[in-house]
């Protein structure tokens, strides 16, 4: 525990190394001749756009996938034998998608796959004991007997980390652990990781968030298109250089580029909205205005927007949409859609797209009425319509006959937006529009959102990505405990002001 901050590089011997790894899926090469070595006590950043092969490489390290070529060595010994062997060798992976079993308890989830047994029977006392120790180690308190399905998203993320820690790993791999966390939680997590590394753990940290990499990593490896671009000590690089390496071109993060906006009439108006985790919210969104909703995960932002548009049950309150001088009340989700509301949900894979259907069909879905004559869909009209929209959102490749499931996260999000563009929405509600999306696609999605607003659409954005929120929004409402804790606009809106409202005055972590 002695704070030895003076040796940030090469703190210990190499624990895990992968040499010349190649992995193909079907015809596509996901990882192409990549080598990486991580030392004990090191936090090793791994960055790259979506589809760069980060997750595949990590799954190979964790024994979930077998490489087509090359080998993984732990302490110089080749690793073969799948997940089990990797676990035994002390490799723990915290997944990007939550990999918990909702019906099992917190303790059982932490010990999943490693239940202590006596004669085949699980040893409940030992199980809870080890789980409790792991939770204590990461400093999170959770009811050990609660079903994980009833925990908040953030808690589940920490339970997952506790599971990795409980195995006393020598290598801890985290794949975008902060994607669902609020800044305060992120801050806590990063501090915790540094502490774990000081204890001699080798950590591989994958993130899209460049500042996090610079805050905790000792070295960083960049992947692009499945190939290794390079590994550099963090002090020898800059955020800009790193982004350039990731995208392979000169790229500027358009932070702080705010839009000139001249909002019009109020289009979306909510009064006294109450719902599960929402305790009375009044909210207006004007034509051509981008309203951001900030706050911690679990503060009730998603619940608020879903209740507003009728996607979830609203227990009280009135929400109206005004278009062409007529004001209509939203009583159900369908009435919301009928009156010009578009909704881009948080979970695009499970809620936004029919993955086994073509891009064209996904785009046609909300527009089916106008594409049909007497209830019969016109194929040529559908494909022309879908193609036009796919092109307008910059879908790559722009093949509308492919299944939506064949596209990467960023492109999938573009499809979701495209299908709503066809309706010329009066209001568009976007929940975490760029979560898990690579840098390039993120910029394009931001461009689309701005264009919509410029055309007079009322835009409501929920985001945990603070720079994104600040960059996009004309007005930011910060939600705390299901209520609006404060409203910020113009120069007063910055990271500090949003955070202090979100956390309830007393700012957590360092300034």
């Amino acid at each position, binding site marked *: *525990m002695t704070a030895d901050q003076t040796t940030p590089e090469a703190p210990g011997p190499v624990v895990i190394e992968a040499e010349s790894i190649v992995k193909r899926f079907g015809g596509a090469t996901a990882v192409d001749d990549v080598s990486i070595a991580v030392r004990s006590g090191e936090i090793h950043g791994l960055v790259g756009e979506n589809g760069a092969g980060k997750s595949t490489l990590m799954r190979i390290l*964790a024994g*979930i996938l077998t490489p087509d070529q090359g080998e993984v060595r732990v302490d110089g010994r080749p690793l073969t034998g799948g*997940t*089990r062997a990797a*676990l035994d060798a002390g490799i723990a*992976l915290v*997944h990007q*998608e939550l*990999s*918990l*079993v*909702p*019906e*099992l308890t917190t303790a*059982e989830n932490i010990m*999943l*796959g*490693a*239940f202590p*047994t006596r004669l*085949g*029977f*699980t040893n*409940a006392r030992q199980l809870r004991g080890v789980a409790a120790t792991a939770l*204590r*180690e990461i*400093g*999170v*308190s*959770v*009811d050990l*007997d*609660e*079903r994980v399905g*009833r*925990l*908040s998203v*953030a*808690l589940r993320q*920490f339970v997952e980390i506790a*599971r990795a820690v409980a195995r006393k790993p020598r290598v801890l791999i985290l794949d975008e652990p902060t994607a669902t966390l609020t800044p305060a*939680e992120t801050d*806590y997590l990063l*501090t915790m990781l540094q*502490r774990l590394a000081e204890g001699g753990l080798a950590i591989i940290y994958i993130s899209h968030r460049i500042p996090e990499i610079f805050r905790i990593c000792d070295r960083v490896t960049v992947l692009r298109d499945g190939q290794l671009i390079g590994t550099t000590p963090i002090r020898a690089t800059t955020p800009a250089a790193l982004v350039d390496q990731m995208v392979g071109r000169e790229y500027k993060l358009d932070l702080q580029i705010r839009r000139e906006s001249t909002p019009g009439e109020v289009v979306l108006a909510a009064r*006294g909205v*109450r719902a599960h985790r929402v305790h009375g919210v009044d909210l207006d969104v004007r034509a051509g205005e981008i309203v951001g909703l900030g706050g911690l995960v*679990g503060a009730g932002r998603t619940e608020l927007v879903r209740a507003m548009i*009728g996607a979830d*049950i*609203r*227990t*009280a*309150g*009135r929400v109206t949409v005004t278009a062409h001088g007529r004001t209509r*009340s939203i*009583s*159900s989700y369908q*009435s919301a859609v009928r009156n010009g509301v578009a909704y881009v949900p948080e979970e695009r894979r499970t809620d936004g797209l029919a993955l086994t259907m073509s891009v064209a069909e996904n785009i046609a879905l909300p527009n089916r009425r106008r594409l049909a004559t007497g209830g019969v869909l016109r194929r040529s009209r559908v494909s022309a319509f879908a193609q036009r929209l796919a092109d307008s959102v910059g879908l790559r490749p722009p093949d509308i006959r492919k299944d939506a499931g064949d596209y990467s996260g960023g492109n999938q999000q573009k499809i979701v937006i495209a299908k709503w563009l066809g309706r010329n929405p009066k209001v568009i509600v976007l929940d975490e529009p760029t979560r898990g999306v690579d840098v390039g696609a993120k910029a394009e999605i931001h461009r689309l959102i701005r264009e919509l607003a410029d055309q007079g659409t009322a835009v409501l954005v929920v985001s945990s990505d603070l720079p994104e929120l600040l960059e996009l929004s004309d007005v930011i409402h910060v939600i705390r405990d299901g209520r609006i804790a404060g409203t910020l606009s113009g120069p007063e809106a910055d990271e500090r002001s949003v955070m202090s409202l979100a956390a309830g005055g007393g700012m957590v972590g360092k300034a």
Partner: protein
Amino acid sequence: MNSTPTLSLGPATTDRSARLRAALARRTEWRGLALLAVVVVATLSFEPLVFTAYPVTLGRVALIGLVALGLTAVILMGELDLSVASTLAVAGVVMASIPNVALGIVVALCAGLLIGLVNAFFVVKVGINSFIATLGMLFVLRGLAFVLSGEKPVRMADIEAGIAFGAPIIGPITPRVLIFVLVFIGLQIFVTKVRAGREFYAVGGNRQAARDAGIPVSRRLVTGFMLSGFVAALAGVINTMERTAADPTAGSTVLLASIAAAIIGGVALTGGRGSIVGTLVGALSLGIIEVGLTLSGVQVDVQQIFIGGVLLLAVITDPASFRAVVGNARSFLSGRRGETPA
């Protein structure tokens, strides 16, 4: 030194009543228990004989429930075994065809395990959805039962052994009920206390997670299907012993009754949710209704209308259904009035 910073992300339940409430809310058997309570109350009021003649009732429950218990193991993993009824028939025919009773039982039970293995092979190795694989096996095994039996009932060689088997052994408890209770206890312990059984929930609740955590998912699936096959074969053996002959058409109503028992008891067909106790509760409800109606001499068509009605009520009174109805009604009303009540 040891004071690590902590993060509070939600209430860690501490007080006793909250704990109890949380523990109760976790259970999945409420709907089944509600139905059972109603059935018991109703039966007590019009046909108390059901309970005074409890060995009969237990016998019927054991008949409906035994196969359902084995099936639950498979359903917990998010799979389905439609071949159980046919397995029951095949095992019965196999057993009755072998002159030596003990040998017959062993071979029949092995046949059940083998059938489970074959089902598992198609599901695990070939990668077919279990609904389809076992639907195919449903036909194959039913056909096999006819082929093996020459399309007619097969009498046991040793009828006396069968008759002795049907007699009560401990008080009024017949071996069938005893075996049912033992299987129930065994499976209950298996899925709550044994590591492999506990992991069934992981396989059904989040298969990828189970795999990533190093749980041998394939082996668990094989275990589950073999359990289901074994229990179905056991039911076939018991039926044959008790009837002193194997009927190749046996068990025609068993499949749907077992699935119904499991679902009434709160076992989710999507996997990962439910319990062995729930299935028992479901089987008890169905058994008591049936015996009660039979005892009071209700005609079979009217019985069917009752049972179907109760089943329909039980399945549409799921809390999720209520939420859906309440939601719909609320939206409808607020749509009408243009405003929702504060």
